[in-house]
């Protein structure tokens, strides 16, 4: 068998000019072409399966003052490609209703949005915070925090965009926080309810 070289992209083995060619060289080359075509077919089939999901919390959720509360989703309004291992069939499961879990290594754009129905105005030190957090703990969070006008009561919202590199099994959660002068608790808004939306931007396996 010759000392085989490889092509730059598909890594197809081939014998070089000074080699003595054997049958096994042709077998190696044929097998590599076969695998390259399989890889191309996989790229083609995955192309249509880049997943996306929209999870909402329609029912009122009580938010305790000063506590970062994970939103438990009760409505999955977009869940495309549910039979696909690549897409979002397993992004959400009733057993872990706060989580959107990545089925494969990927990069996602995540839009988090949350509203609080203020029963009374928050006062000068009041804040509303929307948080998108990775894997439950506070190790990595992205989000937005602002202070509503101190006399405003009723519906107040905040939103945030974020991008996350996820490994298979990593999960994102939407968390809401408020603090201020009132004791609370306050409910999430049910007219425009909290929502976490994910869309795959890229697969880590493709370069």
């Amino acid at each position, binding site marked *: 068998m010759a000392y085989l*070289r490889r*092509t*730059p*992209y*598909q890594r*197809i*083995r*081939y*014998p*070089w*000019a000074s*080699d003595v*060619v054997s049958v096994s*060289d*042709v077998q190696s*080359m044929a097998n*590599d*072409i076969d695998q*390259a*075509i399989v*890889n*191309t077919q996989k*790229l*083609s089939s*995955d*192309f249509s399966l*880049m997943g996306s999901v929209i999870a909402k919390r329609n029912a009122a959720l009580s938010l305790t003052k000063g506590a970062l509360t994970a939103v438990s989703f009760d409505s999955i309004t977009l869940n495309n490609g549910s039979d696909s291992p690549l897409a979002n069939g397993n992004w959400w499961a009733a057993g872990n209703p706060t989580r959107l879990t990545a089925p494969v290594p990927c*990069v996602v*754009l995540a839009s988090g949005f949350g509203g609080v129905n203020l029963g009374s105005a928050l006062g*000068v*030190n*009041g*804040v509303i*915070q929307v948080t998108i957090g990775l894997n439950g703990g506070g190790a*990595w*969070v*992205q*989000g*937005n*925090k*602002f*202070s509503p006008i101190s006399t405003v009561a009723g519906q107040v919202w905040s*939103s*945030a*965009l*974020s*991008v*996350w*590199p996820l490994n298979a099994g990593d999960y994102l959660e939407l968390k809401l926080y408020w*603090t201020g002068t009132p004791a609370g608790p306050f409910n999430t808004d049910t007219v425009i309810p909290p929502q976490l939306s994910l869309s795959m*931007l*890229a*697969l*880590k396996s*493709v*370069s």
Partner: protein
Amino acid sequence: MSGSTTNKGYPYPLLTDFADVQDAYRLATAVDADLRADQAPFRAFEGRPSFVVRQTSNGSGYLSGNDYLIFNAVDWDNTGGAKVGASSWIQPNGQAPSWWMFGATVLTVPISGTPVVGDLVEGRIQVITTDQVSNLATTTYSTQRNDETNTAGEWVNVFTMAAIYRGHVSAVLELNGSTQKALSAGSTFWGFYMGPVT
């Protein structure tokens, strides 16, 4: 080698040709290049250029002015433009003028004194792009302002879309106040390619 396949034009020797070991090389490289070309649109979509970086330690405190998010950790980068220790993502030089989307969560941490409610806190995306003809660079900003609340640090979520060529893009914290604050560990900056500018 004088024959070629009907559809793809892959080269092969005819029975009248002398056998040449380089026939294998020519066939392999032809298949290689052809499949690579066939995969291009899939790779462009599934391997979309993107990056996510973080500052993992608090910056130095200041009263007024701005500071750049430092890339202490590069959590994801398939562009080659996000380097550990840098403060700007650099667009690949070979990339044609392109649409990108950028965003950041800029966190603040109090350094000294009790933060004063209402002091200015702004997060910015700073985009520097180059004109293809004149080679002049221009700088633009996109800003979100969430002023000081004195509740253990501020969070500013800012994002923008930009058409860039040989671009440099950064996340920035702008402050104007009477107590020292800094960019906090955990501040995150990201971007992803959206398509060519035609």
